[in-house]
């Protein structure tokens, strides 16, 4: 039975990784799950310098999901390279570093710093809805996305994965722009911009006013977008958005995702990733599937 998949020439032992920002760099979940079992660990977004993030409250629960506006708080690339990469290097898993920035130069700074690090893939966050400058600004305009993808691709030593926002009219347009500019793979979807009002306090539930909605409530939207993008471009896709269990992950794969990231589920069940990996194997066994790759995009 083969569970190996390949993203831009990087082989993952199974299709399961984590969604950026829900898992730190894996240290906090190391005591719950054996990180060696994961196909890859995708880190929280890292910028060229430390970012303080947004005011609190930064999260709220919504029906069948949650919303967050952390604001990409991160310790900056210097600390990340010294602390997080050596930790992950000890694990038998692939390393996907999520890169964020406020300007093209910020992104390039980080990408160049990572050039000589033992990192397998770079996921470029151009879709965070919670930071004013940069981030989403690149992810909602095909021309801006094309330009930044092209600039990053020219400097990156590792394959790049552009992470797409669902907060657009037509996500396939964005996917095509990233593909045309040389992106090696795509991640989708980032969170959906939402708002929640606390009627007791008569105030926004999250200090940032708007926040990114995630969790099982958005899963059908993510599956639809993965399907659309898989049928619009040739790039491998890391599918994410409300994956809680094996069934959700297999839906993503059958819609066209080569790998699947587990995000909000980690907060509900710290063992979610390894349970899904086991569940996929059981599904394959029970259904006579010899190679996971035969399931990718099998529903047309």
């Amino acid at each position, binding site marked *: 039975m083969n569970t190996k998949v390949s993203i831009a020439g990087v082989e993952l032992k199974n299709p399961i990784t984590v969604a950026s920002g829900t898992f730190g760099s894996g240290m906090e979940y190391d005591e719950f799950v054996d990180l060696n079992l994961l196909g890859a660990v995708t880190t929280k977004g890292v910028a060229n310098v430390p970012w303080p993030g947004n005011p*609190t409250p930064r999260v709220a629960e919504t029906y069948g999901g949650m919303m967050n506006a952390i604001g990409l708080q991160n310790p900056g690339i210097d600390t990340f390279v010294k602390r997080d990469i050596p930790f992950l290097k000890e694990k038998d898993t692939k390393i996907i570093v999520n890169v964020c920035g406020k300007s093209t130069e910020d992104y390039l700074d980080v990408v160049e710093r990572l050039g000589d690090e033992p990192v397998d893939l770079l996921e470029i966050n151009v879709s965070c809805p919670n930071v004013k400058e940069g981030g989403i600004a690149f992810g909602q305009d095909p021309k801006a996305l094309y330009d930044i993808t092209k600039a990053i691709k020219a400097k990156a030593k590792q394959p790049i994965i552009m992470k797409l926002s669902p907060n657009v009219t037509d996500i396939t347009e964005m996917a095509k722009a990233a593909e045309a500019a040389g992106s090696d793979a795509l991640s989708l979807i980032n969170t959906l911009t939402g708002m929640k009002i606390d009627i007791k306090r008569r105030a926004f539930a999250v200090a940032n006013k708007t926040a990114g909605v995630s969790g099982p409530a958005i899963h059908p939207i993510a599956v639809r977008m993965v399907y659309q993008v898989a049928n619009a471009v040739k790039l491998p896709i890391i599918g994410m958005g409300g994956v809680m269990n094996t069934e959700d992950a297999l839906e993503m794969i059958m819609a066209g995702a080569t790998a699947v990231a587990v995000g909000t589920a980690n907060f509900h069940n710290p063992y979610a990733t390894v349970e899904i990996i086991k569940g996929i194997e059981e599904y394959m066994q029970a259904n006579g599937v010899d190679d996971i790759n035969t399931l990718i995009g099998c529903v047309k």
Partner: protein
Amino acid sequence: MGKIKMEAKIIRQDEIATDIYSMVIQAPEIASQAVPGQFIDLYSADGSKLLPRPISLCEIDRAAGTLRIVYRIAGKGTKEFSMLTSDHTITILGPLGNGFTKKDKKAILIGGGIGIPPMLQLAKELTCEKSIVLGFRDEEFLSEEFEPYGTVYKSSDNGTIGVKGTVMDAIREYGIEGTEIYACGPTPMLRAIQSYALEHGIEAQLSLEERMACGVGACLACVCKSKEIDDHSQVKNKRVCKDGPVFYAEEVEL
């Protein structure tokens, strides 16, 4: 042993004041390692409510392998917990966070509102001389359980219980003295204690509250402002769930 997610059997649950519940659960693996000031995450059985509810430990019985939590109904999650009875189980994760550091100094324990419960286990474990100051809105709960462990002083918003006013008013009115403050309660109370402690040069350990998601330090939702650049975040943010919830007064900005 480390943090454990487990299915805990509910031993008993009682409403001890309006919307305030006391729940005792069987969780020997967590009880054996928990310390006062730590908390556990409780999970709803309803899949539409995804995030765990962090609730501090009120009592830890290591011999019996039980934990007691005392919580207020704050929303749909805690409402659901309040309906559980002794034939139910609940999924929990713990122990989480860092508890109070027990000092052999004359202590003032201060609890405000739903910040009172975590002070009970601390009161039981501290062997030094201690004053216990409890602040209520308008309804008393749990205070008699503190009686065996020290002199109990009270305050309430409307003056029906103890001194009218805040815990700080009670401290001034009764001339309560000590060299180590342990406190848990609403932020305005902690802020007043913080400035009192810093002004008088008294060491104070403050237990903070913030909206959380993961509970284990990964998601960076529940940060508080720190005075100095924090080693983990590289900015002036500390994680309440992982670096706290107990901080020294001089470490944090409230």
